[in-house]
């Protein structure tokens, strides 16, 4: 379409200016709203046209290629999903031991009973959706507490790097980590696996296969440091074991996060299927919420609309003190969001592909 021609643009803008449109004639506006162009920007001929840029893979009519390897040829040569994960995320073929280790981790991650991903998959299933929608939802259950591979892994990477830079032993760096961060949901050490040997068996398997590296070594130190300060018994848990093993296999924290969340999604798919097979569908308005679970304001009459001003409470705060007072008060209103303080960070580690697309 491109821009509307100047004559028509001027005529339309003149008419609007004469009619006036709210506050758009204000001088406070950063530009003249009655001199704006109509229509879409013409194609940019000074830069290279848009293309999907990828280091990961390409395809043409007759082949699909990941990191240089034809994927059909990979399968014909006897490789499988496990190896393609190394290819996609690390651009390399894994050793047999690495392949065995990732296989082990993925079996362990496939199913976890009725925890978050399975539960959310079942809830979505009850609304009568496609299976894929439920599988997608289950992946979103992986955050920075449940399946906290990004938080865990980046922190481990940072402390190992810190140890190198500051010439600390891994034990010293681990102590520092535990002192500073505490035994939180992203530490990988907790009381969750005290009776279940699976996490320790996984670490032992990594050592037996010869794929254990600095991450496992560091986690062993973190366990010792946590045990030294914890009043409750703690040990390495599944987050700590799987996270450390995956990073020793060369996967970044983010790659680990994605791979393991997706692995669980297969299990979540089975939960979807079972929910549909066994359960009844859920209709809007069907579920009741028992009053005994409610601890909000007591039942109260809705004020007549004409009396609104009498009942209404303005949120406008004229001073920082007023603002602070209200902010603190609102923390008592559960569900308002005032008790949550978080940083919504840009996870990009680099930005821009300046080497791509020059004409």
């Amino acid at each position, binding site marked *: *379409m491109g821009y509307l021609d100047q004559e028509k643009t001027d005529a339309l803008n003149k008419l609007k200016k004469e009619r006036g449109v709210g506050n758009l004639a204000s001088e406070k506006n950063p530009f003249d709203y009655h001199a704006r162009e109509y229509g879409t*920007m013409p194609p*940019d001929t000074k830069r290279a046209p848009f293309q*999907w840029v990828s280091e990961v893979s390409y395809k043409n009519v007759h082949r699909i290629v990941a990191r240089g390897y034809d994927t059909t040829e990979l399968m014909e040569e006897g490789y499988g999903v496990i190896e393609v994960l190394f290819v996609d995320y690390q651009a390399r073929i894994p050793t047999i031991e690495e392949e065995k280790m990732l296989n082990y981790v993925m079996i362990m991650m496939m199913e976890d009973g009725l925890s978050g991903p399975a539960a959310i998959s079942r809830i979505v299933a009850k609304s009568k959706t496609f299976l894929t929608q439920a599988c997608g939802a289950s992946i979103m259950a992986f955050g920075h507490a449940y399946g906290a591979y990004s938080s865990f892994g980046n922190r481990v990477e940072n402390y190992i790097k810190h140890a190198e830079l500051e010439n600390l032993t891994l034990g010293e760096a681990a102590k520092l980590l535990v002192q500073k961060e505490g035994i939180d949901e992203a530490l990988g050490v907790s009381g969750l696996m005290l009776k*279940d040997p699976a996490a320790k068996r996984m670490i032992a398997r990594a050592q037996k296969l010869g794929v254990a590296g600095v991450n496992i070594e560091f986690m062993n130190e973190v366990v010792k440091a946590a045990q030294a300060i914890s009043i409750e018994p703690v040990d390495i848990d599944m987050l700590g074991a799987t996270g450390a093993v995956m990073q020793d296999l060369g996967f970044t924290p983010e790659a680990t996060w994605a791979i393991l969340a997706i692995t669980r999604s297969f299990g979540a798919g089975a939960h979807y299927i079972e929910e549909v097979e066994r359960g009844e569908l859920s209709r809007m308005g069907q579920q009741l919420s028992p009053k005994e679970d409610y601890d909000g304001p007591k039942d109260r009459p809705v004020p007549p609309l004409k009396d609104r001003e009498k009942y209404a409470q303005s949120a406008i705060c004229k001073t920082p003190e007023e603002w602070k007072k209200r902010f603190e008060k609102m923390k008592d209103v559960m569900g308002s969001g005032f008790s949550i303080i978080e940083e919504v960070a840009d996870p990009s580690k680099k930005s821009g592909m300046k080497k791509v697309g020059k004409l």
Partner: protein
Amino acid sequence: MDRDPTLRRKTALSYKTEEKTVMRGYSLSDMAEEGYSFYDAMFVLFQSRIPTEKEEKMLKYEMGVFLEHSMSPSAVGAIGVSAGRPNLPVCVAAAVSTFGGVHGPGAAHGYMLNKYLERGLKEGKTVDEMAKTLVDDYMDNGTPVMGMGQPQHIDSDPRAEPIHLKQEELELEGVYLEFQRALEKYFHARRKADGRSYVGVNVVGSGNTALMEIGFSPNAGWCIGSVVRGFSCAAHALYNMKKGRAWGASRNEPMVQMIDLSMIKYVGPEDRIVPKQEERQEYAKKQKEEGEYKQWVI
């Protein structure tokens, strides 16, 4: 720490205690220690059984070949979502959720085969006869035959026939492969007779046939296909998150970006005056009467 389940359900899939996680009766840790593969575990998950070695090999091939497909709706979905820099799992969730009625419709293909196999039994017809019936039914109705055709791989999907061949090499031919092969035969013949161009089998047509043959239900097959694709879509999203430009519209990049303003082509109603509130009622009534708006309703 509260360790109660988020939901209480009767389930035949798994249980988890403080001591172990058990899927279909097998301890996951014991399975991993014993040297079973991830593919074996998929059979346990969806079919409650240990597969034969050949079945395991077939699944390995099918999942591996389906994992990466460069720029498809799923990868594009993941990349598009990543532009706003949410948490990575959101990009993957979007990618997996792109699998619907057209993109990788594994369940639909499976249900189609099952429906005609069932009908053949009732009508006393052979698999070959039912394949012809299916092709005729679909093509007479102008309905696309599931598992045939791929918009990018116009000479037939490069993964498709090799999957059939692998299934044959592993001697895993059963009723599904017989049906699918016959379907393809009649499909090609019908298109040729109609003077239409060649359309090959796609990866769903061959891959889902293999999955069904080794005992997976349509939905289990769909889960396997769509979720395994999530692995590569996460890699595409991650690449863009780590090395690409957030938002996808920067004018400082030498290449025009995905949602640069110049990428927008608008074909809707022309620019027009916003009616003032006092003009609104009359304006709106006239607009409804004239009905010109109806061509834009979606």
